[in-house]
């Protein structure tokens, strides 16, 4: 391990010569044959924001789970403030002053903020005294760190940004000095993320130690003091953020030079392929999810839909993919498609030349228990090419799969392996191979690189661009603003079931898109 930051990464809030808040020595952890963490050593100075970056499966979460007492390390030592500490469970982690904010919040939806904060830390058999005490304490903390949350609001009634603050408050209420945040910005708008970073800086200045786990290079550069890079279970480097660059970090993460920008020629848009007019969707709870969406996608262009998740993008993809009924009008190549009736399903859509890479490949795009070859036929099992008379042509499908796996560089290239045996990136390549090689007129793509390693991201982006250059229309939905900015030829921003505006990527910036994503139209934003 090269430790460029040895003794030099003293952050503002740190006392000189103080022992590191966290020190890990030679932590190893194996799950069966998989070595998730290999001999990891790490020092995080007190009062620092320390980033841990790495691809999926690099071992970040395992390492943090060891620190939080979910897993027991096979070997190695944990020192908290210089003292060797055993952390057999999360109670011990809390006692050692460690708090964790998970990617998926662990809050009780129909409890109030106050009740959630107290949950698990109740004192005595009666709730009332604890609640009264907690209310006072909570107000103090909230004031100290400028985290305003109404203690009596129900969790289900407050926004995700606020919910995350409740998670942080929970940790602080339990006197955490070390706060671990796992991919905290995944569900936030840029503005909410900025607010979070302000809170984190405030906490650091008060002497708290913060560990930020993320795969977003931009966040690392923006908010951390020092950063460690993990690759394949090993800590490959720890550097001072000020002395590194996104390119260097990406290279350390992947082990080779990576193209961070999407390389593409200007689009050559042709005739209109997809025309959507006044699309509306009401879900099972009678909530209107799409409130009159209209747009067009032309041949040879990528229309990117930006927005914070949960603002109707998923429903838009599902309607176009035939998974959900809707009202309004949708035309493919000038012909209307059925949005409610018998011909409103995935199969009819595929027959009309619409291919769909769904947002959630594990729950929708693939059957995880099915072999790769079965997944290659999945959705197209009716195709005569995959059938011989009454029976399916399994041998033919396997052969086809072998070709697809080779062309899309799926590793390992074994058609008989279950989908769940592949990494996220390779799973996504299987889905892409299936959908892109159909040569569709329109490709719907949702979150193409979510949970995909950086090396595969490059490949996936190239394949989508290639399809565009072949004169196909592409509708790209992503919550990653970088991806939208890099891939799209036009950008539409969705907020609360509506399209707030369309921009050209060359003529806009993240700030403007961020405002649109938060529902502020440009007039108000500039004022």
């Amino acid at each position, binding site marked *: 391990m090269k430790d460029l930051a040895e003794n030099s990464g003293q952050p503002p809030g740190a006392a000189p010569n103080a022992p590191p808040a966290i020190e890990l020595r030679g932590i190893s952890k194996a799950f069966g044959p998989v070595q998730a963490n290999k001999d990891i050593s790490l020092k995080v100075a007190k009062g620092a924001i320390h980033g841990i970056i790495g691809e999926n499966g690099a071992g970040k979460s395992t390492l943090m789970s060891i620190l939080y007492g979910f897993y027991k390390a096979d070997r190695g030592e944990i020192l908290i403030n210089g003292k060797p500490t055993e952390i057999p469970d999360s109670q011990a982690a809390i006692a050692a002053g460690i708090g964790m904010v998970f990617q998926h919040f662990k809050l009780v939806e129909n409890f109030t903020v106050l009740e959630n904060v107290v949950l698990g830390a109740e004192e005595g058999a009666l709730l009332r005294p604890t609640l009264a005490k907690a209310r006072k304490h909570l107000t103090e903390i909230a004031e100290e760190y400028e985290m305003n949350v109404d203690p009596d609001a129900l969790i289900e009634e407050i926004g995700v940004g606020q919910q995350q603050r409740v998670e942080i408050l929970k940790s602080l209420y339990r006197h955490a000095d070390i706060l671990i945040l796992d991919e905290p910005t995944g569900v936030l708008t840029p503005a909410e993320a900025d607010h979070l970073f302000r809170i984190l800086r405030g906490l650091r200045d008060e002497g708290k130690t913060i560990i930020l786990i993320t795969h977003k290079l931009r966040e690392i550069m923006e908010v951390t003091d020092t950063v460690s890079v993990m690759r394949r279970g090993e800590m490959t480097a720890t550097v001072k953020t000020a002395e590194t660059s996104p390119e260097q970090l990406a290279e350390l993460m992947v082990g080779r030079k990576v193209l961070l920008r999407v390389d593409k020629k200007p689009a050559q848009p042709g005739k209109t392929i997809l025309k959507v007019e006044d699309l509306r969707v009401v879900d099972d709870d009678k909530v209107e999810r799409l409130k009159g969406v209209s747009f067009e996608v032309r041949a040879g262009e990528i229309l990117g839909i930006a927005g914070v998740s949960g603002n109707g993008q998923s429903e838009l993809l599902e309607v176009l993919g035939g998974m959900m009924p809707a009202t309004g009008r949708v035309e493919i190549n000038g012909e209307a498609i059925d949005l409610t009736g018998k011909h409103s399903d995935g199969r009819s*859509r*595929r027959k009309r030349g619409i291919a769909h890479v769904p947002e959630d490949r594990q729950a929708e*795009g693939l*059957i*995880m228990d099915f072999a790769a070859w079965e997944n290659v036929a999945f959705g197209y099992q009716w195709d005569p090419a995959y059938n011989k008379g009454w029976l399916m042509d399994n041998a033919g499908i396997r052969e086809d799969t072998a070709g697809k796996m080779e062309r899309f560089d799926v590793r390992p290239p074994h058609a008989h392996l279950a989908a769940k*045996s592949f990494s996220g990136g390779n799973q996504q390549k299987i889905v892409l191979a299936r959908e892109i090689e159909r040569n569709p007129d329109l490709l719907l793509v949702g979150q193409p690189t979510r949970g995909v390693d950086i090396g595969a991201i490059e490949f996936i982006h190239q394949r989508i661009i290639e399809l565009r250059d072949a004169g196909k229309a592409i509708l790209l939905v992503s919550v990653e603003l970088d991806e939208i900015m890099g891939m799209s030829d036009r950008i539409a921003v969705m907020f609360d079931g509506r399209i707030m505006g369309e921009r050209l990527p060359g003529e806009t910036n993240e700030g403007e898109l961020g405002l649109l994503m938060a529902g502020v139209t440009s007039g108000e934003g500039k004022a």
Partner: protein
Amino acid sequence: MMDVMPRWADVVLVPLISLILAFGISALVILGIGKDPVEAVKLMVTGAFGSTYGWGYTLFYATNFIFTGLAFAVASHASMFNIGSEGQATLGGLGVALVCLALPWPHWAIALPAAMIGGALFGAAWAFLPAWLQAKRGSHIVITTIMFNFIGAAVLNYMLVNVMRPEGSMDPASAKFPAGTNLPTLHDILAPFGIEFSSAAPANISFLIALLACFLVWLMLWRTRFGFELRAFGRSESAAVYAGISPAKIIIVAMLISGGLSGLMAINNVMGEAERLVLNSVEGAGFIGIAVALMGRNHPVGVALAAILFGFLYQGGAELALWMSIPRELIVVIQGLVILFTGALDNMVRMPIERVFLMMRRNAKAGE
């Protein structure tokens, strides 16, 4: 990541060890009531496999369990927990009886296909309403099929007492089927080959039809488009919707096939053995089918093997009760233990075996 265990360990070793554990505990129970477990095992094995008479009963029971096991397995692959085999088989019996009594059938070879259609149709019909309620209204299939078991029993009771009972008879049973519907037993089938098979045992041509059903179910599940869609839906409903597979269609058709298979069982117990319709003719075979399917990993080959094992337990258990003055209830305990270990406690055996395989693999790697 790879599968932890080789396939043979998954399909052979785990059930085998579960079985040994179940028999081990059963032996302790037999010891506990002061009997000799070794003698009991001997008696069970000779009773079930020691003579063609024993075989005849073992295979007769196994035939019932193959049909109900397949029925459960097919529904299971569509993630439907069909508890209603018992009721569907009961109604299947009614269907078979109505067909058999409808005409003076000249020959069994004509009566059998007709009876199969009757049994399968009635069984499928009994599964249709729960399936429809699940597909369209979201009523849980477990609840509705259980309720339909009771309704089915009541329907049979009503039909036998009020409609089908021959005039003057005090017995709640149908009239005897005409001789033209009597199925050839294994004795009749094997005699031309020079094999002496007991003529007293009820095993009949239905056993061969059950084996054929195993093959067809396998073909349907793993070689046809519908089977592909059914299994895909069973693994992930959201993915099935994405692929344009209609959940309602899969639920209903899978349940119709499942109910039809349950109903087919009646050609064995009603047409093949009793040769008339009696009350409670299914005798719990519908529930045993669940255990058979669980133990057979929902695969037709596994179902056939597990059905023969349960046939052995039934027949051997009956012998035990007859010759060793071991109470009949204890046989139920042994059967229960087998179900418990092979079905419910599967993971208890699986986890340690997986760990052993992991260690072996790690050692093998270290040795390289």
